[in-house]
């Protein structure tokens, strides 16, 4: 696995006391605004804290910006022409290329959005993709991809995307991907703060440009159903207070890289804790199997054994473990567990 160390010269060149504000432009392409909504749920720090405590200046954001029309266009051109330094360009949503590579199906401020993306990516010190769509295409890029959508530096698992595999921002780093549908607010705020406070050097990106600090572990890490996973005790159908969602209901928790059960959602829970199977939404393949008939909320199996098993395990050993685990399982593993 090729890892990226985020060593770059920008902070050496600009002593922290001279970098009073970190300018951000946030735009949306083929987006649902879900990452914005998620971002607004942030609590420590809140979106307002970013501005008041961490020196982040949101020059413009579709839901928060003050300017409209011509005034916004002037602001964007000032960034592109270098009159206003652009520290972070955040993009949410896919880059829409339809029809026929022109991008006219997603126009913004009188131009195809993809032209703005291309221009802003050239001047930005850092480019951050929030959510699956900007990272690798997400749902809009699902077959038949009617909008010819791409992520910024990937299309699904394939490297390249809209900006190309060799793209590096002004600070010399590739697009930082914060995937998820949506991305967790803390993943977004922590990366923005890391950039603003010069701590980005400490983190490492994985082969899909995801910060390992959030995406090295599995969704399963910290799930309250781990013990049921170990004993192969299943949740056979929804609305039950027992079992693991992996065996029947299609949960992808063991195979998905995220921190959903370490950094809880909305501070209170996670999908798997609440009984909803993990859909694997931080991985480039989401939505898995292109939602073909028979694949939704249903574990794909061969002769009763899950087709996909936790990464790194061998099929044979997994089968062996299953036999042992089922034999060893205590009676309570199949009884109601998370009781009222």
């Amino acid at each position: 696995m090729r890892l990226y160390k985020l060593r770059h010269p920008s902070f050496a060149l600009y002593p922290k006391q001279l970098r009073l504000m970190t300018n951000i432009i946030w735009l949306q392409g083929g987006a649902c605004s879900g990452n914005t909504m998620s971002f607004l749920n942030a609590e420590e720090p809140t979106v307002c804290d970013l501005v008041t405590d961490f020196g982040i200046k949101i020059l413009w954001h579709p839901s928060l910006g003050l300017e409209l029309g011509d005034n916004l266009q002037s602001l964007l051109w000032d960034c592109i022409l270098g009159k206003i330094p652009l520290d972070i360009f955040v993009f949410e949503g896919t880059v829409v290329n339809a029809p026929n590579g022109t991008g006219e199906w997603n126009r913004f401020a009188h131009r195809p959005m993809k032209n703005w993306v291309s221009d802003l990516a050239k001047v930005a010190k850092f480019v951050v993709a929030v959510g699956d769509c900007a990272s690798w295409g997400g749902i809009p890029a699902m077959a038949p991809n009617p909008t010819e959508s791409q992520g910024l530096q990937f299309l699904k698992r394939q490297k390249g995307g809209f900006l190309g595999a060799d793209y590096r921002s002004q600070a010399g780093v590739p697009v930082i991907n914060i995937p998820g549908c949506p991305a967790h607010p803390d993943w977004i705020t922590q990366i923005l703060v890391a950039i603003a406070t010069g701590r980005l050097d400490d983190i490492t990106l994985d082969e899909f440009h995801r910060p390992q600090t959030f995406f090295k572990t599995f969704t399963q890490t910290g799930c309250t159903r781990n013990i049921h996973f170990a004993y192969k005790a299943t949740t056979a159908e929804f609305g039950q207070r027992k079992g693991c969602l992996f065996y029947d209901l299609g949960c992808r928790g063991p195979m998905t890289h995220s921190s959903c059960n370490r950094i809880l959602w909305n501070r209170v829970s996670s999908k798997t804790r609440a009984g909803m199977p993990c859909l694997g939404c931080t991985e480039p393949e989401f939505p898995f199997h292109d939602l073909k008939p028979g694949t939704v909320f249903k574990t794909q199996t061969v002769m009763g054994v899950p087709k996909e098993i936790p990464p790194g395990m061998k099929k044979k050993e997994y089968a062996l473990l299953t036999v042992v685990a089922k034999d060893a399982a205590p009676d309570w593993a199949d009884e109601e567990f998370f009781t009222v």
Partner: protein
Amino acid sequence: MSIQTLDISPVGRVEGDLDVRVEIEDGYVVNAWTHAELFRGFEVILRGKDSQAGLIVTPRICGICGGSHLTCASWALDTAWETEVPRNAILARNLGQLVETIQSIPRYFYGLFAIDLTNKKYQHSRYYNEAVRRFAAFSGKHYEIGVTISAKPVEIYALLGGQWPHSSYMVPGGVTCAPTLTDITRAWSILEYFRSNWLEPIWLGCSLERYEEIQTYDDFMVWLDENRAHRQSDLGFYWRMGLDIGLDKFGGGVGKYVSWGYLPHEDKYQKPTIEGRNAAVIFKSGVYDSYSDTHTLMDHSFVRENTAHAWYDEGTADIHPLDRTTKPILKNNKDFNKAYSWSTAVRHVDYGRLEAGPLARQLIAGGKHGESWQHYDGFILDVFKRMGGPSVHLRQLARVHELVKLYRQVERCLRELKLNEPWYIKPKQKDGRGWGATEAARGSLCHWVELVDGKIRNYQVIAPTTWNVGPRDAQQKRGPIEEALIGTPITDPTDPIEVGHVARSFDSCLVCTVHAHDAKTGQELARFRTA
């Protein structure tokens, strides 16, 4: 005086990107065109997919009202599969819908709308300095509290669905969760926190009970004059400042309104059918025609879409959404005499163009139509009549008036949940047609689904902003926002903030609108195919 044409791209803070062209004469808008400039083709994506794919895909049409999409997607499958939905599940779905809408109210008011009150245009208003102190972006005292508190209600959604936005916890036959004592207690506590830290002290300046005494325009005036706390609450302050800067003077619209109604009653919709929905929802459906002052029930069969001025090659006739043939125009050139938007024009077969949203809901809540047990509230209808019709200002009042009522419904759901009863009854998958509807925070939302051989044959969505932001129809009738822009004063054409006021008063959500329509088959797009 010559006519000045102004193209505004984009009008921000409307969720998604909206472009508007206005013609201005003597400082007033005399003609307007709204165009949606983004296309994602969700319905194409859904074709041929698993019957349940809508549960995963449609919440992602819109990150703002994903819970509303999920509500529609699940009820659509329930009606197609003829499921039985246990009462706990109906309550848990309603709970998700409710807290998502409550979240949206402060987030919309402070984040999207009230910032405009700090625009330099209003610096001569005697309320200006106070508005800046309260509502300035990021640093305003109440902006910060309001935006932060808006994250609280959806913590309750996360207790049920694991996260907000984008959970898929509503499934045909019920819900995926089975909450325990902890979840219910935390939900109560979150609700109390929301009330005691913002809703009462900052928003209302009084108790919920005192606010609930307001039934008429006169009652509201009495409340406003009653004491300083009421006048200085954000509601009281906004009301006074809005009048001072003339927000009651423009932003009218088409004068006819639609609501699907929502919140199926837990004892009346356990065997969900399309036909049975109107008589089962707590907040009733309806159409209100302000010209004849009449209320009637709404039904999905009354909906028509027209693509005469949209970028689709589907003729000029009005058709029912399930009959659409889905042919987008490849070259989406802007031509204001022909096609200029990805949004279609939605019409009622008898009433024509209708406005959707909180104002529509509240005007319909004031009708005597529907079932005798259904919710009735004549307040906004009374204000509407006393103020001589709709405006930007009245839309705001209608939006925030729902807060206390929705809060009470959340309390009711939490009280009614019976933790040891079922949450899910496993259904049998079937082919057929289904329809699910709800009211998203910003208005009427519905999904049609047609299932054949365990696959989606056709999936159609009409979102609230499709109703509101649509272009002209075949009869050249303007859409509701286009109509509402007529007569809007423009003080400074270089900063046409008034256009923003009108567009934002609909709380438009462009991400829904344009994603809710069909595209082509995908054949010639092979090089971008990912399968």
